[in-house]
Protein backbone atom coordinates (compact mmCIF):
# COMPACT_ATOMS: atom_id res chain seq x y z
CA UNK A 1 0.00 0.00 0.00
CA UNK A 2 1.46 3.33 -1.03
CA UNK A 3 1.34 6.55 0.95
CA UNK A 4 0.39 10.09 0.01
CA UNK A 5 0.62 13.56 1.41
CA UNK A 6 -2.38 14.93 3.23
CA UNK A 7 -3.62 17.82 1.05
CA UNK A 8 -4.57 19.75 4.17
CA UNK A 9 -1.51 19.45 6.46
CA UNK A 10 1.13 17.74 4.28
CA UNK A 11 1.52 14.83 6.72
CA UNK A 12 2.23 11.42 5.24
CA UNK A 13 -0.94 9.31 5.17
CA UNK A 14 -0.80 5.53 5.00
CA UNK A 15 -4.16 3.72 4.88
CA UNK A 16 -4.54 0.90 7.38
CA UNK A 17 -6.35 -1.29 4.87
CA UNK A 18 -6.59 -1.89 1.12
CA UNK A 19 -8.56 1.14 -0.01
CA UNK A 20 -10.34 1.82 -3.27
CA UNK A 21 -11.41 4.94 -5.07
CA UNK A 22 -14.22 6.74 -3.35
CA UNK A 23 -13.42 5.63 0.19
CA UNK A 24 -12.96 8.18 2.94
CA UNK A 25 -10.02 7.99 5.31
CA UNK A 26 -8.89 10.32 8.07
CA UNK A 27 -5.53 12.03 8.25
CA UNK A 28 -3.90 10.81 11.45
CA UNK A 29 -2.24 14.17 12.01
CA UNK A 30 -4.88 16.84 11.33
CA UNK A 31 -8.03 14.69 11.32
CA UNK A 32 -9.18 15.91 7.90
CA UNK A 33 -11.54 13.61 6.01
CA UNK A 34 -9.84 12.61 2.77
CA UNK A 35 -11.30 11.00 -0.32
CA UNK A 36 -9.28 8.37 -2.16
CA UNK A 37 -9.10 9.62 -5.74
CA UNK A 38 -6.74 6.84 -6.78
CA UNK A 39 -5.56 3.81 -4.85
CA UNK A 40 -2.29 3.02 -6.58
CA UNK A 41 -0.43 5.27 -6.49
CA UNK A 42 -2.40 6.73 -3.63
CA UNK A 43 -3.95 10.11 -4.41
CA UNK A 44 -5.98 11.97 -1.80
CA UNK A 45 -8.20 15.04 -1.88
CA UNK A 46 -10.06 16.74 0.91
CA UNK A 47 -13.49 15.08 1.04
CA UNK A 48 -16.44 17.22 -0.06
CA UNK A 49 -18.74 18.66 2.59
CA UNK A 50 -22.15 17.14 3.14
CA UNK A 51 -24.59 18.26 0.44
CA UNK A 52 -28.29 18.74 0.75
CA UNK A 53 -29.32 15.90 -1.53
CA UNK A 54 -27.07 13.26 -0.02
CA UNK A 55 -28.78 10.31 1.53
CA UNK A 56 -30.45 6.99 0.98
Amino acid at each position, binding site marked *: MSTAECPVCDAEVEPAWEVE*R*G*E*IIDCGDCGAEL*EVMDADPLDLEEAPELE*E*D*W*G*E
Partner: protein
Amino acid sequence: MDVGFVCSRVRKDEKLLLEELRGRGHTVHRIDPRRGNLALDTPHLDDLDGGGTLGTEGDGADIVSVEDLDVAVNRELSQSRGLYTTRYLESYGVTVVNSHDTSRVCMDKVETSLALEEAGVDTPETRVAYTEESALEAAEELGYPVVVKPVVGSWARLLGKLNDREAAEAVFEHKKVLGSYEHSVFYLQEYVDHGGRDQRVMVADEEVVAAMERSTSDGWITNASEGAETTDVDLDTDTEAAAVEAAEAVGGGVVGVDVMHTPDGEPLVHEVNHTLEFKALTEASGVDVAAEFTDHLEEQAQT
Protein backbone atom coordinates in the same frame (compact mmCIF):
# COMPACT_ATOMS: atom_id res chain seq x y z
CA MET B 1 -22.32 -10.73 -15.61
CA ASP B 2 -21.11 -7.18 -16.25
CA VAL B 3 -22.40 -4.79 -13.61
CA GLY B 4 -22.35 -1.01 -13.78
CA PHE B 5 -21.82 0.16 -10.21
CA VAL B 6 -22.83 3.82 -9.93
CA CYS B 7 -21.34 5.46 -6.86
CA SER B 8 -19.02 8.25 -5.88
CA ARG B 9 -18.42 7.50 -2.21
CA VAL B 10 -17.65 3.96 -1.12
CA ARG B 11 -19.17 3.40 2.31
CA LYS B 12 -19.34 0.13 4.23
CA ASP B 13 -22.57 -0.70 2.37
CA GLU B 14 -20.90 -0.34 -1.03
CA LYS B 15 -17.86 -2.32 0.14
CA LEU B 16 -20.10 -5.22 1.20
CA LEU B 17 -21.90 -5.19 -2.15
CA LEU B 18 -18.68 -4.87 -4.17
CA GLU B 19 -17.14 -7.77 -2.23
CA GLU B 20 -20.16 -9.94 -2.91
CA LEU B 21 -20.27 -9.10 -6.62
CA ARG B 22 -16.56 -9.62 -7.14
CA GLY B 23 -16.58 -12.73 -4.96
CA ARG B 24 -19.16 -14.31 -7.28
CA GLY B 25 -16.92 -13.61 -10.25
CA HIS B 26 -18.94 -10.78 -11.75
CA THR B 27 -17.17 -8.01 -13.65
CA VAL B 28 -17.78 -4.71 -11.92
CA HIS B 29 -17.53 -1.43 -13.81
CA ARG B 30 -17.41 1.28 -11.20
CA ILE B 31 -18.90 4.53 -12.46
CA ASP B 32 -18.42 7.73 -10.50
CA PRO B 33 -20.89 10.21 -12.04
CA ARG B 34 -18.46 13.03 -11.24
CA ARG B 35 -15.86 11.57 -13.58
CA GLY B 36 -17.05 12.24 -17.09
CA ASN B 37 -20.28 13.33 -18.68
CA LEU B 38 -23.42 12.00 -20.29
CA ALA B 39 -24.42 12.66 -23.90
CA LEU B 40 -27.94 11.98 -25.08
CA ASP B 41 -26.92 8.85 -26.96
CA THR B 42 -23.86 7.63 -25.07
CA PRO B 43 -22.02 7.99 -21.77
CA HIS B 44 -18.49 9.35 -21.53
CA LEU B 45 -17.72 8.09 -18.05
CA ASP B 46 -14.54 6.66 -16.61
CA ASP B 47 -14.63 2.95 -15.90
CA LEU B 48 -12.79 3.02 -12.60
CA ASP B 49 -12.21 -0.73 -12.47
CA GLY B 50 -11.33 -1.37 -16.09
CA GLY B 51 -9.26 1.74 -16.62
CA GLY B 52 -11.05 2.73 -19.82
CA THR B 53 -14.19 4.65 -20.59
CA LEU B 54 -17.78 3.54 -20.52
CA GLY B 55 -19.10 4.59 -23.90
CA THR B 56 -20.37 3.15 -27.15
CA GLU B 57 -18.79 0.34 -29.10
CA GLY B 58 -16.59 1.55 -31.92
CA ASP B 59 -15.66 4.83 -30.26
CA GLY B 60 -12.16 3.73 -29.34
CA ALA B 61 -9.88 0.95 -28.16
CA ASP B 62 -10.34 1.52 -24.45
CA ILE B 63 -14.11 1.74 -24.61
CA VAL B 64 -16.30 -0.49 -22.49
CA SER B 65 -19.56 -0.54 -24.38
CA VAL B 66 -22.59 0.43 -22.33
CA GLU B 67 -24.41 -2.27 -24.29
CA ASP B 68 -22.26 -4.88 -22.56
CA LEU B 69 -23.69 -4.03 -19.16
CA ASP B 70 -26.11 -6.72 -18.05
CA VAL B 71 -27.41 -4.58 -15.23
CA ALA B 72 -26.44 -1.47 -13.27
CA VAL B 73 -26.97 -0.63 -9.63
CA ASN B 74 -27.39 2.91 -8.36
CA ARG B 75 -25.49 3.42 -5.10
CA GLU B 76 -24.84 7.11 -5.62
CA LEU B 77 -24.72 9.24 -2.48
CA SER B 78 -26.06 12.32 -4.26
CA GLN B 79 -29.68 11.63 -5.05
CA SER B 80 -29.70 14.15 -7.93
CA ARG B 81 -26.67 12.59 -9.60
CA GLY B 82 -28.06 9.11 -9.03
CA LEU B 83 -31.45 10.02 -10.44
CA TYR B 84 -30.16 11.56 -13.68
CA THR B 85 -27.50 8.91 -14.22
CA THR B 86 -30.16 6.24 -13.83
CA ARG B 87 -32.35 8.00 -16.37
CA TYR B 88 -29.48 8.21 -18.87
CA LEU B 89 -28.50 4.57 -18.40
CA GLU B 90 -32.08 3.48 -18.95
CA SER B 91 -32.17 5.59 -22.10
CA TYR B 92 -29.07 3.73 -23.32
CA GLY B 93 -30.96 0.46 -22.75
CA VAL B 94 -29.47 -0.59 -19.41
CA THR B 95 -31.62 -2.07 -16.62
CA VAL B 96 -30.90 -0.16 -13.43
CA VAL B 97 -31.66 -1.16 -9.84
CA ASN B 98 -33.48 0.85 -8.77
CA SER B 99 -35.30 2.17 -11.79
CA HIS B 100 -35.64 5.86 -12.52
CA ASP B 101 -39.35 5.66 -11.75
CA THR B 102 -38.78 4.16 -8.31
CA SER B 103 -35.93 6.58 -7.59
CA ARG B 104 -37.95 9.62 -8.63
CA VAL B 105 -40.84 8.67 -6.36
CA CYS B 106 -38.68 7.79 -3.36
CA MET B 107 -36.41 10.81 -3.67
CA ASP B 108 -39.26 13.29 -3.32
CA LYS B 109 -41.46 13.05 -0.24
CA VAL B 110 -44.43 14.59 -2.04
CA GLU B 111 -44.22 11.93 -4.74
CA THR B 112 -43.85 9.22 -2.10
CA SER B 113 -46.87 10.41 -0.13
CA LEU B 114 -49.04 10.56 -3.23
CA ALA B 115 -47.90 7.13 -4.43
CA LEU B 116 -48.71 5.61 -1.03
CA GLU B 117 -52.10 7.31 -0.91
CA GLU B 118 -52.96 6.23 -4.45
CA ALA B 119 -52.07 2.63 -3.56
CA GLY B 120 -54.12 2.69 -0.38
CA VAL B 121 -51.10 2.34 1.94
CA ASP B 122 -51.63 3.98 5.33
CA THR B 123 -49.30 6.94 5.84
CA PRO B 124 -49.38 9.93 8.21
CA GLU B 125 -51.78 12.72 7.28
CA THR B 126 -49.77 15.09 5.12
CA ARG B 127 -50.26 18.63 3.84
CA VAL B 128 -48.26 20.70 1.38
CA ALA B 129 -48.45 24.50 1.35
CA TYR B 130 -46.48 27.13 -0.53
CA THR B 131 -46.47 30.19 1.68
CA GLU B 132 -45.72 30.80 5.34
CA GLU B 133 -49.32 31.83 5.95
CA SER B 134 -50.87 28.80 4.27
CA ALA B 135 -48.35 26.52 6.00
CA LEU B 136 -49.44 27.95 9.34
CA GLU B 137 -53.06 27.29 8.44
CA ALA B 138 -52.17 23.72 7.54
CA ALA B 139 -50.29 23.27 10.82
CA GLU B 140 -53.29 24.56 12.78
CA GLU B 141 -55.57 22.18 10.90
CA LEU B 142 -53.31 19.20 11.57
CA GLY B 143 -52.91 20.24 15.21
CA TYR B 144 -49.71 20.65 17.19
CA PRO B 145 -47.26 19.10 17.46
CA VAL B 146 -46.74 18.93 13.73
CA VAL B 147 -43.74 17.59 11.79
CA VAL B 148 -42.05 19.57 9.01
CA LYS B 149 -39.68 17.92 6.55
CA PRO B 150 -37.75 19.00 3.45
CA VAL B 151 -39.19 17.40 0.31
CA VAL B 152 -35.72 16.15 -0.64
CA GLY B 153 -33.42 15.05 2.12
CA SER B 154 -32.29 12.13 4.18
CA TRP B 155 -30.65 11.08 7.44
CA ALA B 156 -33.19 13.15 9.40
CA ARG B 157 -31.65 16.40 8.20
CA LEU B 158 -33.80 19.47 8.83
CA LEU B 159 -36.68 17.54 10.34
CA GLY B 160 -38.64 19.61 12.81
CA LYS B 161 -41.24 18.82 15.43
CA LEU B 162 -43.18 22.03 15.91
CA ASN B 163 -44.91 22.06 19.27
CA ASP B 164 -46.84 25.31 18.91
CA ARG B 165 -47.65 28.24 16.63
CA GLU B 166 -44.63 30.28 17.75
CA ALA B 167 -42.23 27.49 16.79
CA ALA B 168 -44.01 27.03 13.46
CA GLU B 169 -43.80 30.75 12.63
CA ALA B 170 -40.08 30.81 13.37
CA VAL B 171 -39.23 27.69 11.38
CA PHE B 172 -41.36 28.63 8.38
CA GLU B 173 -39.75 32.07 8.23
CA HIS B 174 -36.27 30.55 8.42
CA LYS B 175 -37.09 28.08 5.66
CA LYS B 176 -38.47 30.83 3.45
CA VAL B 177 -35.60 33.24 3.98
CA LEU B 178 -32.61 30.92 4.30
CA GLY B 179 -33.58 27.87 2.28
CA SER B 180 -33.41 27.07 -1.41
CA TYR B 181 -36.66 27.27 -3.39
CA GLU B 182 -37.53 23.71 -2.39
CA HIS B 183 -37.80 24.81 1.23
CA SER B 184 -40.73 26.99 0.26
CA VAL B 185 -42.62 23.80 -0.47
CA PHE B 186 -43.78 23.30 3.10
CA TYR B 187 -44.29 19.58 3.68
CA LEU B 188 -46.13 18.97 6.94
CA GLN B 189 -47.25 15.80 8.63
CA GLU B 190 -49.26 14.94 11.69
CA TYR B 191 -47.05 13.95 14.60
CA VAL B 192 -47.55 10.27 15.42
CA ASP B 193 -46.71 9.12 18.92
CA HIS B 194 -44.70 6.07 17.85
CA GLY B 195 -43.16 5.44 21.24
CA GLY B 196 -39.66 6.30 20.03
CA ARG B 197 -39.42 3.36 17.67
CA ASP B 198 -40.08 2.31 14.10
CA GLN B 199 -39.15 -0.54 11.81
CA ARG B 200 -36.93 -0.56 8.74
CA VAL B 201 -37.99 -3.23 6.28
CA MET B 202 -35.97 -4.17 3.23
CA VAL B 203 -38.18 -5.38 0.41
CA ALA B 204 -36.96 -6.88 -2.86
CA ASP B 205 -39.16 -8.39 -5.55
CA GLU B 206 -42.21 -7.80 -3.37
CA GLU B 207 -40.78 -9.95 -0.57
CA VAL B 208 -39.41 -8.94 2.81
CA VAL B 209 -35.69 -9.68 2.90
CA ALA B 210 -34.69 -8.30 6.29
CA ALA B 211 -36.03 -6.06 9.02
CA MET B 212 -34.86 -4.29 12.12
CA GLU B 213 -36.35 -2.13 14.80
CA ARG B 214 -34.88 1.32 15.44
CA SER B 215 -35.49 2.83 18.84
CA THR B 216 -34.43 5.88 20.72
CA SER B 217 -34.90 6.99 24.30
CA ASP B 218 -33.79 10.49 23.40
CA GLY B 219 -36.38 12.32 21.31
CA TRP B 220 -38.57 11.22 18.44
CA ILE B 221 -36.13 10.70 15.56
CA THR B 222 -35.35 7.03 14.95
CA ASN B 223 -32.74 7.22 12.19
CA ALA B 224 -29.72 5.00 12.75
CA SER B 225 -27.61 7.94 11.54
CA GLU B 226 -28.89 9.87 14.56
CA GLY B 227 -27.77 7.17 16.96
CA ALA B 228 -30.94 5.09 17.30
CA GLU B 229 -30.44 1.58 18.62
CA THR B 230 -31.05 -1.14 16.03
CA THR B 231 -32.23 -4.63 16.89
CA ASP B 232 -33.66 -7.66 15.12
CA VAL B 233 -37.44 -7.76 14.92
CA ASP B 234 -40.17 -10.19 13.92
CA LEU B 235 -42.69 -8.26 11.86
CA ASP B 236 -46.38 -8.76 12.44
CA THR B 237 -48.41 -9.61 9.36
CA ASP B 238 -49.94 -6.14 9.03
CA THR B 239 -46.54 -4.46 9.07
CA GLU B 240 -45.12 -6.92 6.57
CA ALA B 241 -48.08 -6.37 4.26
CA ALA B 242 -47.77 -2.59 4.57
CA ALA B 243 -44.07 -2.73 3.69
CA VAL B 244 -44.63 -4.91 0.65
CA GLU B 245 -47.52 -2.75 -0.56
CA ALA B 246 -45.43 0.40 -0.07
CA ALA B 247 -42.55 -1.07 -2.06
CA GLU B 248 -44.92 -1.91 -4.87
CA ALA B 249 -46.53 1.53 -4.68
CA VAL B 250 -43.25 3.34 -5.36
CA GLY B 251 -42.40 1.13 -8.31
CA GLY B 252 -40.67 -1.91 -6.80
CA GLY B 253 -37.03 -2.88 -6.86
CA VAL B 254 -34.88 -3.06 -3.73
CA VAL B 255 -36.09 -0.53 -1.19
CA GLY B 256 -36.05 0.22 2.52
CA VAL B 257 -39.50 0.93 3.91
CA ASP B 258 -39.84 2.77 7.21
CA VAL B 259 -42.91 1.84 9.19
CA MET B 260 -44.03 3.30 12.49
CA HIS B 261 -47.03 2.35 14.58
CA THR B 262 -49.79 4.42 16.08
CA PRO B 263 -50.55 4.00 19.81
CA ASP B 264 -53.27 1.57 18.63
CA GLY B 265 -50.68 -0.53 16.83
CA GLU B 266 -51.66 0.40 13.28
CA PRO B 267 -48.71 0.50 10.85
CA LEU B 268 -48.06 3.76 9.02
CA VAL B 269 -45.46 3.96 6.25
CA HIS B 270 -43.60 7.24 6.52
CA GLU B 271 -40.69 6.83 4.11
CA VAL B 272 -39.34 4.60 1.36
CA ASN B 273 -35.62 4.66 0.54
CA HIS B 274 -34.33 3.70 -2.90
CA THR B 275 -30.60 3.54 -2.12
CA LEU B 276 -30.98 2.00 1.30
CA GLU B 277 -28.02 1.75 3.58
CA PHE B 278 -27.82 -1.78 4.94
CA LYS B 279 -24.78 -1.99 7.20
CA ALA B 280 -26.87 -1.63 10.36
CA LEU B 281 -29.60 -3.83 8.90
CA THR B 282 -27.08 -6.59 8.21
CA GLU B 283 -25.72 -6.43 11.75
CA ALA B 284 -29.12 -6.21 13.44
CA SER B 285 -31.01 -8.80 11.39
CA GLY B 286 -28.23 -11.30 10.80
CA VAL B 287 -29.30 -11.45 7.13
CA ASP B 288 -26.55 -11.25 4.51
CA VAL B 289 -28.16 -8.28 2.79
CA ALA B 290 -25.36 -7.88 0.24
CA ALA B 291 -25.92 -11.48 -0.90
CA GLU B 292 -29.67 -10.94 -1.15
CA PHE B 293 -29.07 -7.71 -3.07
CA THR B 294 -26.74 -9.51 -5.47
CA ASP B 295 -29.31 -12.27 -5.98
CA HIS B 296 -31.74 -9.56 -7.10
CA LEU B 297 -29.21 -8.04 -9.49
CA GLU B 298 -28.52 -11.45 -11.02
CA GLU B 299 -32.24 -11.96 -11.54
CA GLN B 300 -32.58 -8.55 -13.16
CA ALA B 301 -29.64 -9.27 -15.45
CA GLN B 302 -31.42 -12.35 -16.78
CA THR B 303 -34.64 -10.55 -17.64
